[in-house]
């Protein structure tokens, strides 16, 4: 099977024709379409071969994945459309501010590792709500945590569906709405078929596809435009400096973008200078975004669930190290696309392009062969698929295991639970598709909402639940109420602004509780509320304290 898949992938370039490279959008692209279909078939095949046979497989892949394998799965699970398409988009559009997302989406792993990874594995639960329900000895909290986990998954998936829609639109030449519906249906079918075991195997394959597709155009671009091409993440430093200082028209007339505009520009320091006025962002927002994303990383249910699938807590720790390393390979390279994209589109004839598609546009404008651009787009789809499937699993697990089985029907058979998990996945996919059609914000920004939500709700309960036995049920409820209130205020104001409604203190709230960084205040307040209320209410039961002391910290 593997040989057939690899063989067909290699044959694709020979079978397909080049497309009109001067057209960034608009037509059906046969080569990229074949590449995408081949990759999707490969994903489904792998999903079928390794499909879930029990609830244990569906939720936690049988706990039989190696450290490096799990690291790759973490990376693939993590490297979503937000990483693949959204980060370059943010740097392209907002310059240095975009780096807050790069730092935020990587730095959080340090917190996750030193504060949680090993302990979560030792606690030995399947899902984040499972941990919360057990640690805070409350079925109601488990149910609320499950609902929050589902909301986080939905919020995270909206950005991914936006990315899938953009790439399907680009490849198939159809409108965005149909692209979202078709792309969303494909990812839904594949998640339903495979479950987590297949997903984990797929994630390892997806990681390789994502990295290869992302890197190849960068080698070509740095080589073509005469930079240090052997290591693009270092070589592009000169590109950034060229943007800051300006770049004269080169001697070679061949150095142009695909439209024939010279590879040259006047000084554009706003691309690299910190919190530049012209980007509409400032120092506070940079710090708040970085903090929120970092803390959110350590509170995302689908990330936390990755630690349940390794055999030992030591493996959980090393899988984070490997995962972060694999993630950083992509994150070191994403700014390269934005830098080249900046120069290629600096001519007023081209102007600001659709930010979320800048990775693909940069490759096109750099006159890279259409099939390689097609592979890049397929990589973008792959990135979104790997994350969406992980999110659907986390959401479906919360729905079936934490809500249905643990709260409503403890007698449910394994078959029934699996059915509910699949039903939950379908409902989530429909909701996500509908929200994605509204195009509320950039991919990276939409995903950041999920991070702040996780940081305000799940993170404080995990942090205090693991490290302070004094944190009790009442404290957790208080922290959750505070975190959810701040999240709701921010999200309501964000949506109101988007639909043109007027609310009191709108500018003030939109600035200080921005939808992609409200955790800067929400998280500390939720932690304080949890501590204060825990101090003035009855102590944590002795059996919970004993379990923590002996099993988690023993």
């Amino acid at each position, binding site marked *: 099977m593997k040989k057939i898949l690899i063989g067909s992938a290699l044959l694709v370039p020979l079978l397909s024709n080049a497309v009109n490279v001067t057209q960034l959008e608009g037509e059906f692209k046969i080569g990229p379409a074949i590449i995408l279909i081949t990759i999707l078939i490969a994903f489904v095949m792998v999903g079928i071969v390794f499909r879930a046979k029990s609830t244990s497989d569906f939720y936690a892949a049988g706990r039989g994945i190696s450290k490096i394998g799990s690291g790759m799965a973490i990376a693939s699970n993590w490297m979503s459309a937000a990483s693949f398409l959204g980060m370059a988009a943010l740097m392209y559009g907002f310059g240095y501010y975009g780096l807050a997302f790069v730092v935020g989406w990587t730095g959080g792993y340090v*917190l996750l590792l030193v504060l949680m990874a090993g302990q979560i594995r030792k606690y030995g639960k399947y899902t984040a709500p499972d941990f919360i329900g057990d640690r805070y000895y409350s079925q109601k909290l488990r149910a609320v945590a499950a609902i929050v986990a589902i909301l986080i998954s939905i919020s995270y998936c909206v950005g991914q569906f936006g990315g899938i829609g953009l790439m399907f639109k680009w490849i198939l030449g159809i409108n965005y709405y149909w692209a979202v519906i078709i792309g969303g249906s494909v990812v839904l079918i594949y998640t339903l078929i495979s479950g987590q075991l297949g997903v984990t195997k797929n994630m390892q394959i997806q990681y390789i596809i994502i990295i290869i597709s992302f890197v190849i155009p960068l080698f070509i671009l740095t080589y073509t435009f005469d930079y240090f091409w052997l290591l693009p993440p270092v070589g592009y430093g000169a590109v950034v400096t060229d943007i800051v200082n300006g770049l004269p028209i080169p001697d070679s007339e061949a150095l142009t973008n695909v439209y024939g505009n010279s590879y040259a520009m006047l000084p554009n320091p706003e691309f*690299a200078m910190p919190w530049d006025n012209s980007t509409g962002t400032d120092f506070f927002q940079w*710090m708040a975004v970085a903090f929120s994303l970092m803390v959110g990383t350590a509170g995302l249910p689908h990330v936390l669930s990755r630690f349940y699938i390794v055999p030992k807590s030591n493996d959980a720790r090393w899988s984070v190290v490997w995962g972060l390393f694999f993630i*950083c390979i992509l994150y070191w390279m994403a700014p390269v696309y934005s830098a080249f994209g900046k120069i290629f589109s600096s001519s007023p004839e081209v102007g600001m392009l659709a930010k979320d598609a800048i990775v693909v546009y940069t490759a096109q404008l750099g006159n890279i062969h259409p099939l390689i651009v097609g592979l890049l787009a397929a990589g973008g789809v792959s990135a979104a698929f790997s994350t969406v499937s992980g999110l659907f699993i986390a959401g479906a697990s919360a729905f079936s295991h934490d809500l249905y089985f643990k709260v409503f029907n403890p007698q449910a058979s394994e078959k029934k639970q699996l059915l509910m998990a699949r039903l939950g996945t379908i409902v989530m996919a429909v909701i996500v598709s509908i929200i994605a059609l509204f195009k509320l914000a950039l991919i990276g920004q939409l995903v950041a909402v999920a991070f702040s939500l996780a940081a305000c709700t799940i993170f404080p309960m995990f942090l205090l639940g693991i490290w302070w036995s004094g944190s009790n049920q009442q404290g957790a409820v208080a922290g959750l109420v505070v975190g959810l209130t701040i999240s709701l205020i921010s999200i309501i104001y964000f949506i109101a602004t988007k639909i043109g409604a007027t609310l009191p203190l709108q500018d003030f709230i939109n600035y200080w509780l921005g939808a992609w960084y409200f955790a800067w205040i929400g998280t500390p307040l939720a932690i304080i509320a949890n501590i204060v209320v825990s101090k003035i209410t009855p102590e944590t039961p002795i059996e919970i*304290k004993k379990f923590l002391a002996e099993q988690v910290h023993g």
Partner: protein
Amino acid sequence: MEDYNISFFKPKSEFSRKNRNLVLTLVIIWAVSVFGFQILLKIIEKPVPEPALVEFNEIKANVFTNSATPYEKQILLKSLISVANKNTLNKTVEKPIIEKAINWAVYSLVTDKNAVSNNIQNIQNLKTEALNISDFVKYKEERLRIKELEKQLVAENHSELNINKNDIRAEILTSVLNTDKETLLTSEEKEKLPQIMNKFLIHNRSVLTDTTFIGFPFHYFYTAVFLLVLFVGLCYLYAKQIEQLNKQFGIED
């Protein structure tokens, strides 16, 4: 009764104490490296205008009172082109004002307005037609031919515009110039123009942004490359150290 209380800050065993110290050390390094550096960047930064803005500010009063000399208009033109090259310009308000101002400056400088207008029309037509060429080699050839025409247009008016045909400004200029010879800025647009120039031509700079390190502005390298290396390093260090601690204290998974 045995005490089962757990608190990160009050470790009870030697292992917990060492683990706490390790975690605190790493978190402090992490926090200072990420947020400390950005705070430093903020503290030492200064708003620095681009030369184009300094020149614009020197001549803007005369321009707005319609008493600018041709030399001052040439300076204005160059300053405006500097902003026209920034693709973060707002397409509905800022870009149209900048392009209108460029048009006004050019047509008030050149003597043969009709010739410039006709040439621009011709170039625009050729560019539109070129987009329909499906053969990429032919398309590139056509674009090179158009580029020569653009250079020729700038060269013919060099004495009035003071822009070299091989300068990137020539390419930008011919991209934004249109055929409207009688462009005038409204008083509202005149009011907005300096605001747009200030917005796009003042940047926060310091020794950290102006120092180059392996090709990067230093602060950019630090944030985009070094911090990620540091994160991986911190994670590696923790995993190694905790492995040793587990071994030392006989703690098994």
